[in-house]
């Protein structure tokens, strides 16, 4: 039996990691797989660091992901990508949004936001950077950044696009289906464009 596919969604309370996790779980259900999904509510939701964990496979036991075993990390904010990067498996892929939200110690001036987070994630974790806030704006609603990122992840995970779209449609509120599907496509396409660029880049590295 294969071990489950572990997906970690990291972000800031209020960014919609929970909805994104629900779409992933719904997709797993549509694909006929076992799934477990774990989230934390309550105090941490008030602008704190939040993670949602999704595990998909033939049979899933634990609802949580161990350090170094996430096959995919979807980071909704740069610093949160860095915070949870140690959760990524050596074989794993990280997708990180360009979104930058300063935590309260930085706003108060008692800590500083690290420089060059995105390039660090690209260099050390081969992270794929997605301009989710901009693409969400293009989709027609800045609050759909989360679904842009789900689109990007779906492309990387190589599932059937139709099944993914069904998962989005069945999860988001009915009146927001269209805008979310647009966001999903923009995220999906952003990765395919990135993939073409990457091929060139990888060749250069090999030379």
């Amino acid at each position, binding site marked *: 039996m294969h071990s489950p596919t572990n997906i970690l969604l990291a972000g800031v309370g209020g960014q919609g990691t929970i909805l994104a996790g629900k779409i992933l779980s719904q997709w797993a259900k549509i694909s006929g797989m076992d*799934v477990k999904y*774990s989230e934390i509510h309550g105090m941490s939701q008030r*602008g704190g660091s939040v993670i949602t964990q999704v595990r998909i496979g033939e049979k899933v*036991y634990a609802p949580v992901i161990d*350090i170094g075993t996430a096959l995919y990390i979807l980071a909704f904010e740069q610093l949160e990508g860095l*915070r949870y990067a140690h959760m990524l498996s050596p074989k794993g892929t990280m997708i990180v949004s360009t979104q930058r939200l300063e935590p309260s110690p930085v*706003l*108060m001036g008692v800590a500083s936001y690290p420089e060059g987070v995105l390039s660090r994630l690209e260099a050390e974790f081969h992270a794929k950077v997605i301009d989710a806030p901009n693409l969400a704006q293009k989709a027609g609603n800045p609050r759909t950044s989360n679904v842009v990122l789900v689109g990007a992840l779906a492309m990387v995970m190589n599932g059937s696009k139709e099944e993914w779209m069904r998962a989005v449609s069945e999860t988001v509120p009915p009146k927001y289906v269209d805008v979310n599907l647009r966001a999903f496509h923009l995220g999906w396409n952003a990765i395919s464009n990135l993939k073409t660029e990457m091929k060139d880049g990888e060749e250069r590295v090999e030379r």
Partner: protein
Amino acid sequence: MSKELLSGNEAIARGAWESGVKVAAAYPGTPSTEILENISKYQEIDSQWSPNEKVALEVAIGSSVAGARSLAAMKMVGLNVAADPLMTLAYTGVNAGLVIVSADDPGIHSSQNEQDNRFYGRFARIPVLEPSDSQEAKDYVGIALNLSEALDTVVLLRTTTRISHSKSLVEIGERQSRGLKAYKKDPSKYIMVPGYARLRQPEVLARFERIQEWTESASINHIEWGDRTIGIITSGVCYQYVKEACPGASVLKLGVTYPLPLRLVRKFASEVEHVIVVEELEPFLMELVQLSGVKLHPINLPRIGELTPKMVRHAVESAFDDEEQSIDSVPSPDVPSRPPVLCPGCPHRGVFHIFHKLRLTVSGDIGCYTLGALPPLNGMDIFMDMGASIGMAHGIEKANPERVTKTVAVIGDSTFLHSGMTGLLDMIYNKSKGTVVILDNGTTAMTGHQDHPGTGKMLSGEETVTADLEMICRSLGARRVRVVDPLDVNELESALKEELNAPEVSVIIARRPCALIVKSDEPSMECDEELCKGCGICIKLGCPAMHLNDGVVEVDPALCTGCALCAGVCPFGALSHKEEKDA
């Protein structure tokens, strides 16, 4: 039968509906809140928010005695509030089935302690059931209700955050409706005056023997045979960790964790070489297994916080290795922390700013406003349990009457109605000169905006009588009761100064709706770079919508609600609403 992806809490709600529950009551509390929110979607169940957990359980007791299957749900510390009826309910038993859901919070994600409520089962001599996923969470509600009726006992269904807030696939069924069970007047069973209570005790002990016998053959306790070198006894989410970490081991999976099926435990132990127990928090099962005479192989698991599959694997491997292995933990990178904060536009912020400014000793309470204790507001000195702020402030005054002009109790509207009213009554009755600030944002915000008696709406959304905070305080005997707008910091400050020096109890109601419920239509703020001196006074409000950039304040228009609290504290008039300046 179709499968649905449900959280443990949604599954418990579904289980209550399927097994014919007619009455359900709760007070919101993470991680239990969604149980009643989901039950309220089923028309056949009369569901309600109660002002506190004690009342919720009492409602469920009454409806059980009157013949309806009933459920009360609460977070683990909520059961402390409901412990008084619980301990005597354990004597009376039930009529129709009665289940209490206790949602524990290992890891203290959103609580004030990490208590292990399995001990309540042992304390009250009632059965404790622990599901290990959403399917079991649903099924165990029905099993608990049948058990409750068969053996005349309340049953505790104990979940943890990882069960309540994890989703997994559940086979759903249909509702088995049932009429009311006949009610028969029976004073010796339902009236626990000393004479009857003494007579009841032998019956409680005899019932415990029957529960013990039931658990021996309960199908939710079962052995999964594997390799017989190691046998692992476990329950709840730890069962999932064991299955993942030690796939080959023999496992005794306990669905009932109190009382233990002693014969089954001994049989399991006799057929494996080494027995270990894997559990989170207190060594609850471990002690009971040892009491049964089984010799345990020692294992080193933490008694604090949540376990993970990796921790279980490491502990089991180390238990059979002569050399202690270190767990290969990767340190998380050194990045600034991101603690939760009061939202932009939160009406509580200004109150804590003024507390800090006046250097008050603040006796705090439970809700979003507890975040006012964190930097930069640092506006709290003591914090304990629901409603405690008022009694503790009174105690501070008793210890040193001179402190009264520098001490304040602060409590939210929902918390005040939960258990703050008796504290205020105590203050007034005992001639305190103290000051109480009620932060009235018109909702139970921290748990996700549930209604309460002060909002004028019930769990169903139906309108009802609105509890009037001013009238309540006055009727308790408070003569100085005033309402202020917490965004007007100057008014707030002068009101506080006046009431702190008043020669009797004062209540200040700081009233403004939660910024997440009533969205502001004010334009966002902006900072005039010419006027801003970069003094940072506004930054000390801890608002996520503003920060200092090169000695000048910047406002993030996407986050700013235009509450103008910052303009109220700026000594240089540098902050104003956007349109106002353009006009």
